[in-house]
C-alpha cells in the first residue's frame, strides 16, 4: 500500500526533496508543488518545526505555490504545533506565494471532527489579506490533491 502510494507520487512527476524521521517531502517544480507525507501517528513539536523550517527552504528556493499535506498516518495532533503551522507558517509562506493548501486527513470521522474543532477558532486569527487569498481544501488522495 505504502509502496503503491510512493510509486504514484513519483509517477505524478515528483522527486524526493528530503526525508526525516517523521516525514517524506517531495517536490515538483513544474507543478510548483510540494508534498509532505507524515509517517508516524504523532510528531513531536520540535521535530514538527524543524520539518516545516526545511519545507520553507524548499518553498522559498523553488517558487512553490501549492502545498499538499498528507496527514493520514496521524492519530494525535499537538494543538500548539497545529497553531504554529496554521497561523505562523502559513502566513509566512503566503507572503512568498504559497497560497494553495491541500490536506489529506486519516479516514476517521472522530479525527476529522477533532481537527475541525481545533481549526475553527484559528481561522479568525489569520490576517485579513491572508484569509482573503489563501485557498485551503481537503482531499481524499494525493493524486486528487495534486490536480485540484
Amino acid at each position, binding site marked *: 500500500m505504502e509502496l503503491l502510494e510512493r510509486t504514484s507520487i513519483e509517477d505524478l512527476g515528483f522527486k524526493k526533496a528530503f526525508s526525516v524521521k517523521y516525514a517524506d517531502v517531495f517536490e515538483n517544480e513544474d507543478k510548483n508543488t510540494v508534498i509532505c507525507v507524515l509517517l508516524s501517528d*504523532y510528531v*513531536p*513539536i520540535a521535530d514538527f518545526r524543524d520539518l516545516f523550517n526545511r519545507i520553507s527552504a524548499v518553498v522559498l528556493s523553488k517558487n512553490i505555490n501549492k502545498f499538499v499535506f498528507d496527514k493520514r498516518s496521524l492519530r*494525535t*495532533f*499537538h*494543538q500548539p504545533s497545529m497553531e504554529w503551522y496554521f497561523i505562523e507558517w502559513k502566513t509566512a509562506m503566503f507572503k512568498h506565494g504559497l497560497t494553495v493548501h491541500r490536506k489529506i486527513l486519516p479516514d476517521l470521522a*472522530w479525527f476529522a471532527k*477533532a481537527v475541525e*474543532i481545533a481549526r475553527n477558532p484559528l481561522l479568525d486569527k489569520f490576517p485579513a489579506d491572508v484569509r482573503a487569498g489563501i485557498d485551503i481544501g481537503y482531499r481524499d488522495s494525493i493524486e486528487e490533491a495534486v490536480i485540484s
Partner: protein
Amino acid sequence: MSGTPQAFMIFKEELRKAEVEKKRLELHYDSKISNLSQQISVLKEKMVAQEQMMKSALDYAIKLEEELNDVKQNINNDLIKNSSGYH
C-alpha cells in the same frame, strides 16, 4: 633480584582492561538512558496532546448539549405560548 613482579604486571593489565570496560559500559548505558529519556519526553508530550484533544472534544460535546437544551427549552416555551394563543 628482578624488577616488578610478573603478577603485579598482570594485575595492572587486568586493572587497565577493567577500567576500559567500565568506561565502555558507562558510555553504553549513558547513551541508552539518554535515548530512553528522549522517548519518555516524546510520550509525555503525546499524552498531553491526547489529553488536550479529549478536552476539546468534551468541551465541544458540552457546548452542543447546552445548545440542544436551549433549543428544547425554546420549543417548550413556544408550545406553552401557543397553547394559550388564538384557537
